[in-house]
């Protein structure tokens, strides 16, 4: 049904998107918690940095990544010299770029549901003998589970569609960094490949729709499972 070219791009996209989302998840929960609950100096700065990928052109993000994580960059060079790890121009690099671009969306979804958690419930847990971490894991985390699900799907969808930062940072290498958007771009640049480009575009839309529907279904199920009964959307 799918051509080898399409299969390769699809599988690579799923791998890059999946790793990007999972890798971003725990930092996103941590940062959301800090932003929703923390009171510390320079909070506005953290907020700004986290949200930058939403407003800064993706090419700029890709370029900054190339400078920082490239073979001669301040982070990339030691990584290569000491551990032999190269990020630029690899699929791992594509995942880093996708993760960074998806990060603010994920933080927003989690933060939104964190702000809806009734802090009086956390107080009640404290009076029942739960310490800070205990309260987080036994009360806060389950209560924001729907938000986390939404954040994962949103982040995954964003990572799948990542183009500008990816192509700038890791280029367009077949089988390594040519995800679906990059493959589509390649086809769009190739004379006479309109039909293939159309198929790939359709495939991208289908994958995105599946992610969206899955998010809705899972979020609803989670909400019901934790007893919120759909009355509080994340």
């Amino acid at each position, binding site marked *: 049904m799918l051509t080898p070219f399409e299969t390769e791009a699809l599988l690579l996209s799923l791998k890059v998107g999946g790793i990007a989302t999972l890798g971003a998840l725990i930092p996103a929960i941590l940062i959301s918690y800090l932003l929703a609950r923390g009171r510390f100096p320079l909070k506005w700065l953290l907020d700004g940095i986290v949200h930058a990928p939403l407003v800064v052109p993706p090419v700029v993000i890709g370029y900054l990544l190339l400078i920082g994580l490239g073979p001669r960059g301040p982070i990339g060079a030691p990584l290569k010299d000491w551990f032999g790890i190269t990020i630029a121009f690899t699929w791992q690099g594509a995942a880093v770029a996708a993760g960074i671009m998806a990060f603010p969306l994920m933080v927003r979804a989690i933060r939104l549901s964190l702000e809806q958690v*009734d802090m*009086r*419930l956390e*107080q*009640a*847990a*404290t*009076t*029942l*003998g*739960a*310490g800070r971490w*205990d309260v987080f894991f*036994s*009360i806060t985390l*389950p*209560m924001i589970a729907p938000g986390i699900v939404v954040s994962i799907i949103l982040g995954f969808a964003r990572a799948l569609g990542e183009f500008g930062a990816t192509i700038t940072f890791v280029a367009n290498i077949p089988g390594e960094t040519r995800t679906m958007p990059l493959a589509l771009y390649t086809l769009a640049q190739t004379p006479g490949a309109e039909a293939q480009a159309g198929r790939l575009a359709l495939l991208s839309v289908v994958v995105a729709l599946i992610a969206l529907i899955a998010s809705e279904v899972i979020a609803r199920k989670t909400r019901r*499972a*934790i*007893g*919120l*009964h759909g009355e509080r959307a994340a």
Partner: protein
Amino acid sequence: MISIDVKTRLGAFTLDAQIETGADSHTLALYGRSGCGKTSLVNTVAGLLRPDQGRIVIGQDVLLDSQAGIEIPAQKRRIGYVFQEGRLFPHLNVHNNLIYGQRRNGEGPISLSQAVELLDLAPLLARKPYALSGGERQRVAIGRALLANPRLLLMDEPLASLDSHRKGEILPFIARLRDEIGVPILYVSHAMEEIAQFADQVALMEAGRVVAVDTVERLTARLDLHPLTGRYEAGAFLSARITEKNAADGLMRLTLTGGAKLLVPMADRPLGTEMKLRIRARDVSIALQEPRDISILNRLPGTVIDIRPDTDGPMAEVLIDVGVPVWSRITKLSASTLSLSPGKPVWALIKSVAIDRTAPGRPKPD
């Protein structure tokens, strides 16, 4: 025994409260109008609010002593807090809500099965909080606090969000807690009727200060506190004991603490049962001689202690000593026609006596 002495500024409001209960006082009620600082005070006891300075001792345990540098954090205080709105964890079913504190603090005075039995929770165990009625939620909240091995049970208007029918459903459970489990209770309320049913002592609060700590009977009998204890709905709260039952008439005789006797309709309780009564001021009339041909059975001789005319309106309140103080609400005109004055002997005619029927009487060992 509960000993509280805290001082704290909350914006324009200052909480400056001292409470010292007797050693045999197991239920202390905190009474006062909304905004008088009751909730701030209990939050301070629970450790949710940090006072500028203070000392809080429950039994033998010092929870806070700012001079000695002792401050036990909220999660280690073991204060079973029953919140006004229940605050059940929505993602846990009733069973897991109940054992949340027990898991962390260890088993306390009662086991899970005892609590389930006491509060009649068995049919609810598998349900999630959203599927519970308001009364059921409060019962679960009480159970959860009780199972958390508490030093003190703190109840912040646990009945406030319930209609009177549900209140009647919960009150007996609270009375059973007092009688069957040794945990001291601090009960916050602005309803004297609730408090009168089971509190040993009442701390009266006004504008962040504790004005008086005493028994319900003595507090409601104090003229100077009457604006705070509530004038129109108030009357006297009395303790009495069933000393005689007469099945033929369907009546029973109650003996008040001062020795005065009352005849009231029979209640299904054994002789010797200690019970709480309420005699509303508007149900008490005054006569100078004992009227003979009258339908009122309860005619008690006494002396006028004090008279307090309303500042506006035609009514006055008279405090009469019939062995215990009772209130009478009559017109200023009657007061002057009868030329009432402190020390004058009178007869108090009591039209009806409200017996607290929701709380089971507490048999008192002699």
